């Protein structure tokens, strides 16, 4: 859903009260973004890729990024597509323009994201995430839907020592607090 040009209502972001820890390992709320949950059959992936301007990944645990858009493979017919910027770049409209059968649902506000950046980022996440986050097993660009403590997250490795943690907004307080704990422990 495209945002209207100048809403009279202001946004209150999840984690709006949170101040990131200023340390070599930072845990900070990410900026608002446009997000869609995209579902489509394999024969329609090419057309949707063309419409979105990126190659929708088809291998598990992979992502693809281009032009401020990132597509996360979540399942054989499921992607989380994120577009930079609060206004969004018209992900829904782009999908419609593909002309092929698909389901695109706006989840821009369902999720929020937390960035974990710096030395020990993987260890901080491993406080609650049982995955092997070594570069060998989870290289830059790898993504997965997984668990973090008691909540579900979508984890994307954005750099050797940086991750994006996508989480539903009502779980974001918990996820942030556990990441902060993990980050603290990663320094010992």
């Amino acid at each position: 859903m495209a945002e209207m040009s100048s809403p009279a209502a202001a946004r209150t972001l999840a984690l709006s009260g949170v101040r990131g820890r200023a340390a070599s390992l930072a845990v900070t709320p990410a900026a608002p973004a446009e997000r869609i949950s995209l579902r489509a059959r394999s024969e329609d992936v090419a057309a949707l890729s063309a419409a979105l301007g990126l190659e929708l990944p088809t291998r598990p645990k992979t992502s693809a990024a281009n032009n401020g858009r990132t597509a996360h493979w979540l399942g054989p017919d499921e992607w989380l597509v994120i577009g930079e910027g609060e206004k969004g770049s018209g992900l829904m409209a782009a999908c419609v323009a593909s002309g092929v059968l698909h389901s695109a649902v706006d989840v821009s506000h369902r999720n929020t994201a937390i960035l974990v950046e710096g030395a020990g980022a993987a260890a901080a996440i491993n406080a609650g995430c049982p995955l092997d986050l070594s570069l060998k097993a989870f290289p830059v660009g790898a993504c997965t839907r997984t668990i973090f403590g008691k909540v579900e997250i979508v984890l994307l490795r954005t750099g050797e020592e940086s991750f994006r943690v996508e989480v539903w907004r009502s779980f974001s307080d918990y996820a942030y607090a556990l990441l902060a704990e993990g980050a603290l422990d990663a320094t010992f």
Partner: protein
Amino acid sequence: MSGSSHGSAKNLGAFRLKGAGRLTPARTSRFTFDGKSYTAMEGDTVASALLAHGVHLVGRSFKYHRPRGILSAGPEEPNALLDVARDSARRQPNVRATVQEVFDGAKISSQNRWPSLAFDVGSVNNLLSPFFPAGFYYKTFKWPREAWEKVYEPIIRRAAGLGVAPKEEDPDRYANRFAHCDVLIAGAGLAGLTAALSAAATGAEVILVDEQPQVGGALHFETSTTVDGKNGFDWAQETAAKLAAMPNVRILTRTTVFGYYNHGFLGLAERVSDHLDRPGRETPRERLWQVRAKRVILATGAIERHMVFANNDRPGIMLASAARTFLNHYGVAVGRNVGVYTAHDSAYEAAFDLKRAGVSIAAIVDCREQPGEAVLAEARALGITVLTGHSVIDTTGRLRIKSMTVARNGNMDIRKMAVDALIVSAGWTPSVHLFSQSRGKLRWDEASQRFLPDIYAQDCVSVGACNGTDETDLLVDEAISAGGGAASVNAERRFGWSGGMIGAAEGAGPDTRVKAFVDFQHDVTAKDIRLAVREGMHSIEHIKRFTTNGMASDQGKLSNMHGLAIAAEMLDRPIPQVGLTTFRAPYTPVTYGTLVAHSRGELFDPARKTPMHDLEAAEGAEFEDVGNWKRAWYFPKRGEDMASAVNRECRTVRDVAGVFDASTLGKIEVVGPDAAQFLNLLYTNAWDTLKPGRCRYGIMTREDGFVYDDGVVGRLAEDRFHVTTTTGGAPRVLHHMEDYLQTEFPHLKVWLTSTTEQWAVIAVQGPKAREIIQPFVEGLDISNEAFPHMSVAECAVMGVPARLFRMSFTGELGFEVNVPADYGPAVWTAIWERAKSMGACLYGTETMHVLRAEKGYIIVGQDTDGTVTPDDAGLGWAVSKKKTDFVGIRGLKRPDLVRDGRKQLVGLLTNRPSDVLEEGAQIVADPNQPKPMTMLGHVTSAYWSENCGRSIAMALVAGGRSRIGQTLYVPMKDRTIAVEVTDTVFFDKEGGRIHG
């Protein structure tokens, strides 16, 4: 007191030997034991520090309250369990003195004694011991039955258990870390370090774990082993430094591998700061490591056994290897005149080391006729008396051993020898705990009289002493090969070891009544095990439970083999036929704090809050938990209790309007050309007839025909539906739908997406609802004509893209404003400000419950319970008669689901309007019928209805609808309430208000 103070006046202990051990006096710390102050050196354990000051008596035994000392120098310690405190909250009972390092200011106390350690009233149990045989509890506290709860159990509970848990909340932090590796090596002695060198050389990711502060394992005491020409312990430290510098190796010391689970999953407890004088506020006390290892190398070593003889438990009696550790590592002599009682060559080396350090050796008493020749020759060379074929058959000394009584085997000639310590060895038990936990199968090795790893269940290998590999060169080869790479390690040991025995020694045989302890921690003697066999326990599992042998927190690390051998002898069966009890995790006790790790306080469980939560809290909302959600329950004004707040809210909604946070309702977006067809199959209603822009209340049943969930579904477009579910039902309804879509209806072109959290939902209900929201809605005519009840539209609210529903769970004119979640607070604030100015109120879930009950709207899970069909709930109209298929259609045709007399949902009105029924109360036709009465059903919902001016209730009653007009009864504890059966609509029966 400074931890780094220097000074010659420091008393490091009369038994601290100059020039012995590896600790330096550069850093010392002070601690108290039972109120008395002592000085320790950096690196001391509580045990070594106490022994340095000549303190052997540290505790009282569990059952007989016998004085007990320090038996070992490691985690197998069964006796020296102490209470260690930093402050009143940071106090831990049952800490093994041999594991806990001294920190400055530690307050350490003995346990299980009153009034003092030296004079303990409970020791009367020792004199009364003939009355406390094994199985005492089972035999004595049988009758009368009532006495269990009131008399026996409280007394036993008070007497049972060691130590007292602190009452304060634990202020320490605990951490958790998941990790993966190619090879995990448990134990960093000679075998583990060698295996690590070999594995690391292949480039594998290696985690090397050892429970001690420093690597080295047995090299802590084993000074006659040289590696690569160096002292073994020094080689171990150099090797660890070399390994730690490699990027693919992580060494965790002070860390215990406590559990080996399926698929290479291991639990590790790291003691991060228990040894620190002043740990940082944020430093975790302990860290739980949950490691997934591709391969596991077990290099867990072996544990020395004690000798089982009469009065073998006096303070001052300890394992020979422990005495050697205290001497060679801590520089502490365990006595000045030490006796040795052994069945194994290894104890000789303890005698050699002590002798060379200036301690006199009273004698080496060896129950074997023929000890190893090398050690015998060395003993002679050192001038130590060796009595082969002799045994220690008794000891004296109340709080510390004074003498040992020695006899030639099979001979009555005894002599008493004065000693101030007696060190013992019955040989070594391989530590196969982790192997066994991994479901590996052990085999009995007759030649060496021990259980050894045989069949592996996982990708795991045992090396070194835990595998029964005694020779150092073989051990090194085995470790290198296990590591999978190469390493150059040349180890030599001066003496080969032989010998060992299991079971009761001379003078403690079946013909005696002496107390020869097998299990120190649970006070189990050889005689107790024999009694268990005589009383008919023939399986080791039964013997264990009858005697509690091996059931203490040390899990029988010292006692299991002795107990087994004594039982086997009594049963006259070979040991493997008597069996071995199962080793279970944890290997050593693990604190709850470590297992809980981060999951406390706000991290115990996620508290889900709606976007408007803080605004509601600022309005004074009380919240209730609905699943993980915090929902506004009611909004009390100053001076209002819950009932008056709810009454006011109920009245105001119907008189003016109310604003309600409905964000937690589950939402699922169903998209695709076959969306309507899919919903036709999942719900009992028909959906293909629903026009875009319209909503319908839907019922979902399971295959068995019972109500599963309900909710309003809006059709946004031909191929797009906005489904709502109950708050608690959201995840399971999505799973239920996804399950059917993937398994039963995979041909349908439709996809499901959870949008519960995408939308903040602001419900405005009441006669003035339209007037309240009107100014905020853009691009949509919301007049009654253009936007009637059960309409849905996409529009803008305050410039924000919104989905507006006209629907009602109150029976009033109502709207539900859905805006993207981040805009919820702003839109809520604007709507609420306007609503307030018009006399409306905020209301919570309690008022919502009352208002819907006034209208007879059900809550799935409250008015239904998984055995209620749509028709039972009075919702038969929502089951399509035309559809040929939907989930539950066949279930609904089962004879029992269509028979007369099923429980049906009806209304109940109490004869006295002020009586509010209790939810869950049973309903009967004849309150005077003798018990058990015929119960017709139960009350599902009951409230005071301010709007009706009386109580209202709903109930499931057998044949309910045919009983309308009848009087039934609700028997309560103190009275019986007469009720009239009615229909379920109590307010606005014509239903005109929702169309307002």
